[in-house]
């Protein structure tokens, strides 16, 4: 970056460092714009195990190899059949028939990105589980496609909770997957809601600046360039002062509440205009709702304060995230940097959205927010120091920037969600019959496969009988959803269709990338801090009607 260069030199000379990216950055440019260098680094240091080498498994891997996963192992002790050669793009057609499935598929996958370390493991998973199981825990994520419940049970018990287990099932046009983790913390949720500008609770420097402006007498051009937060803070403060005079001292922190008051407030803003076409005032009028939208701590963030109480962080050795949340909790109770409004606030955002304004006024306002943000960061730091966790400055900044959109998810242990608690399943059969029927049908198929090779003719009945065992006795399976789901599976019980495989390949890889980068929000069984709206944490796919749903 050459931003220290004087402007003359910068414009007349091309001797400046170009800043042009290197080959690797260019290769990954389109994804770096989503998860940035930090997400990329996480991806590049992750280790993933996938088994067996089905079309779905290699499709998932393809979407992890392309963006630059660190390492993958593909485990499979089987030999390529004609059926494999026909539906798996990463095998070399009939030339692969008779060779190890894992080895052939890894060759095809590795061609796509030489920055990835890929290994074919031709051992049997059950053998590995018997001897050398600890090695399985060296992976961050283990992905199993159409694996029967007996193997899954052993595997899940071994991996829980440190290695995430992803269970993927499909048959014909139907599919589902789930991720098994205890808790997943997300700082960078990439939420679309932006942080509050605290118009209703202006910090002292902003209030002071706002009230100091000679609105009536200042240069008319400058007047047309006052940013809308300044206009709103001013209008609200004047409104409050008038109200205090009229009603009494305790009324000085309110805001327009009735629709008549809101309408009058908007008119007040209009009346502040000195020319009819001042766009900044029009913008302020459009944003006036910010005055009567109190700045509060989002419920989901508040719930985290109970999840990581300050006391627990002093007793044992807290994780960085727990320490950060507990510092945030203390900050929200007492923030001396905002003496008028010392509690109920999250640290203020240092960045402003774009708004109608001159450069000068905009930068001035930005500096005020930044200075306040620095002050509050110091307060936050002091709380954090007491919690004895060691967090680098970059993480603190990231945490503060995203503090309004923090997310902590919970998952379920495999055992518990195979296929799920009876009451929850019964509920879901009523509230989401399509999704629940599909989920039950796939679970029933998995159970049947573990027992025996099911006979196709009677498969529909077998599936129904098996599904009943997951439910309280007497539970009725939904019509027409159950006959449809079980009928689809009976039609193609062992079909790993290329398009279903590709669809799942994208979905599962997407969720695994979210887990690994700790960015964006993966599927879950709910919020870790709340038992409301508990879910199974399963994503279901139907490619006849083409929908996805979560249970």
């Amino acid at each position: 970056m050459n931003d220290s260069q004087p402007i003359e030199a910068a414009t007349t000379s091309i001797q400046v460092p170009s800043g042009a990216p290197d080959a690797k950055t260019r290769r990954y440019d389109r994804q770096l714009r989503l998860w940035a260098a930090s997400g990329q680094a996480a991806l590049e240091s992750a280790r993933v195990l996938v088994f067996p080498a089905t079309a779905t498994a290699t499709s998932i891997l393809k979407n992890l190899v392309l963006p630059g996963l660190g390492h993958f192992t593909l485990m499979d002790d089987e030999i390529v059949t004609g059926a494999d050669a026909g539906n798996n793009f990463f095998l070399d057609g009939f030339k692969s028939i008779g060779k190890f499935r894992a080895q052939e598929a890894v060759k095809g996958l590795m061609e796509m990105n030489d920055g990835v370390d890929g290994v074919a493991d031709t051992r049997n998973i059950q053998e590995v589980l018997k001897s050398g199981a600890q090695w399985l825990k060296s992976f961050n994520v283990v992905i199993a496609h159409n694996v029967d419940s007996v193997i899954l049970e052993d595997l899940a018990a071994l991996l829980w909770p440190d290695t995430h287990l992803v269970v993927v099932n499909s048959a014909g046009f139907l599919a589902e997957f789930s991720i098994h983790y205890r808790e997943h913390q997300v700082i960078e949720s990439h939420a679309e809601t932006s942080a509050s500008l605290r118009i209703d609770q202006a910090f002292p420097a902003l209030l002071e600046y706002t009230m100091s402006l000679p609105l009536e007498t200042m240069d008319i051009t400058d007047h047309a360039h006052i940013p809308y937060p300044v206009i709103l803070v001013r209008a609200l403060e004047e409104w409050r002062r008038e109200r205090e005079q009229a009603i009494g001292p305790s009324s000085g922190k309110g805001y327009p509440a009735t629709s008549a008051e809101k309408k009058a407030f908007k008119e007040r803003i209009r009346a502040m205009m000195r020319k009819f076409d001042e766009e900044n005032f029009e913008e302020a009028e459009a944003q006036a709702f910010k005055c009567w939208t109190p700045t509060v701590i989002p419920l989901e963030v508040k719930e985290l304060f109970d999840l990581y109480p300050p006391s627990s962080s002093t007793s044992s050795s807290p994780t960085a995230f727990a320490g950060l949340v507990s510092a945030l909790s203390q900050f929200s109770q007492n923030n001396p940097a905002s003496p008028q409004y010392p509690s109920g606030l999250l640290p203020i955002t240092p960045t402003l959205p774009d708004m109608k304004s001159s450069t000068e006024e905009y930068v001035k306002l930005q500096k005020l927010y930044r200075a306040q943000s620095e002050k509050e960061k110091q307060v936050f730091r002091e709380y954090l120091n007491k919690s004895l966790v060691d967090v680098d400055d970059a993480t603190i900044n990231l945490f503060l920037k995203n503090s309004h959109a923090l997310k902590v998810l919970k998952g379920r242990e495999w055992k518990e969600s195979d296929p799920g608690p009876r009451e929850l399943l019964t509920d879901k059969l009523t509230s989401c019959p399509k999704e629940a029927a599909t989920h039950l049908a796939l679970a029933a198929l998995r159970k049947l496969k573990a027992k025996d090779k099911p006979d196709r003719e009677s498969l529909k009945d077998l599936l129904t009988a098996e599904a009943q065992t997951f439910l309280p006795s007497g539970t009725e399976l939904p019509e027409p959803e159950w006959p449809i789901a079980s009928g689809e599976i009976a039609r193609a019980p062992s079909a790993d269709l290329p398009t279903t495989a590709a669809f799942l390949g994208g979905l599962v890889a997407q969720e695994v990338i979210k887990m690994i980068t700790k960015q964006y929000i993966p599927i879950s069984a709910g919020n870790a801090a709340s038992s409301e709206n508990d879910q199974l944490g399963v994503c279901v796919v139907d490619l006849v009607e083409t929908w996805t749903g979560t249970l």
Partner: protein
Amino acid sequence: MADAQENHDWEGRYYHIDQILDAPGPRTDEGFMAGEGVKDFLRNQAKILVIGAGGLGCEILANLALSGFKDIHVIDMDTIDISNLNRQFLFRQKDVGKSKAIVAAEFIMNRVPGIKVTPYFGKIQDKDNDYYLQFNLVICGLDSVEARRWINATLVNLVDPENPESLKPLIDGGTEGFKGQARVILPTITSCYECSLDMLNKPTAFPICTIANTPRLPEHCIEWASVLEWPRVHGDKKMDTDDPDHITWLYTIAAARAKEFNIEGVTWSLTQGVVKNIIPAIASTNAIIAASCCNEAFKIATSSAAYLNNYFMLIGIEGVYSYTFEHEKKSNCPVCGGDSVSLSIKPDMTLEELIDLLTERQDIQIKNPSLSTPTKQLYLRAPPQLEEATRPNLFKTMSSLIPDGGEVTVTAGTLPFSLSLDISYT
């Protein structure tokens, strides 16, 4: 070995797919001909066109080949860039600079035996109606709105009610970051691409006065460098956004302006992103959307199961959220509807202002239109003599040009359809 596999349909090749093709499912139409008939149609008769061999196109080609389509055509005018390699998985470093359509076709034919992929390295507009008539289905994986509007209108115009074969189902996919959509268009029967034009996000455009006078964001500084400074300094020399030296020049200028105005955040990468209007793109989203498109193609070609009616929208930012719905046909769609668009305007609006309105309206978005009434030309872009002759009309008021309730026909050279407007005055 290869001789023994003459038709390449080795034993078990279609083990997975044939489970679907050998028997109907609970949601299969009665007309489904399970067994050899449908297999023969899919593998020996169906001819499918793929438009775009990029992020979606690569995935689409691989899926179609594995699904059993054997006669595939692909059109793409682009060449391979290094930034494609994070998702366009049929391309390697050594292919950079080559035609996407040709490299992709060769890759598929090498990898999946017995498939014929015919590439065309060029524009969809190069091809005529007879070319499009030869296909049973068209799948689009495009990143351009203009190209989609063109192929959509072309396929709608192709429909001849006397000839059912002339109706070519169009399956369209699109992605942006973690979001995407797939849809099935049955030209003239279901909602078409043009019907849903107003669903597109409005592109961010910065007012020129912000760029020139009151920059606040790094993007404003970059626009200043590319929109104002480049032509001022370089005159007629065209800016090439694929040339890293040009981006570096813009970056340097933008960074200097940002420094002057105390604005932070101008980087090389942001500069490139703004001037090229880069849309983030990842392998996983492309895989989902392309799979969905090909799945619909497979179901439509084989009648083996009900197909998407008609729009699947995916948002993968928070969990897996998707929404499947029927997008409704618009009766005044300029492409597939019969009705004209009613436009109520002020009588003193000038023709030039009307043209601006047509360009900006989300549901119209016609660039550089020519306008006429059934009896006279209002404004024509070409030829130059007519442009000159009709130019004075631009500054006249609409009410002086046409009466209340009058009809105006709008055409644009880039689109194969015309829009008729019913003008009324307020």
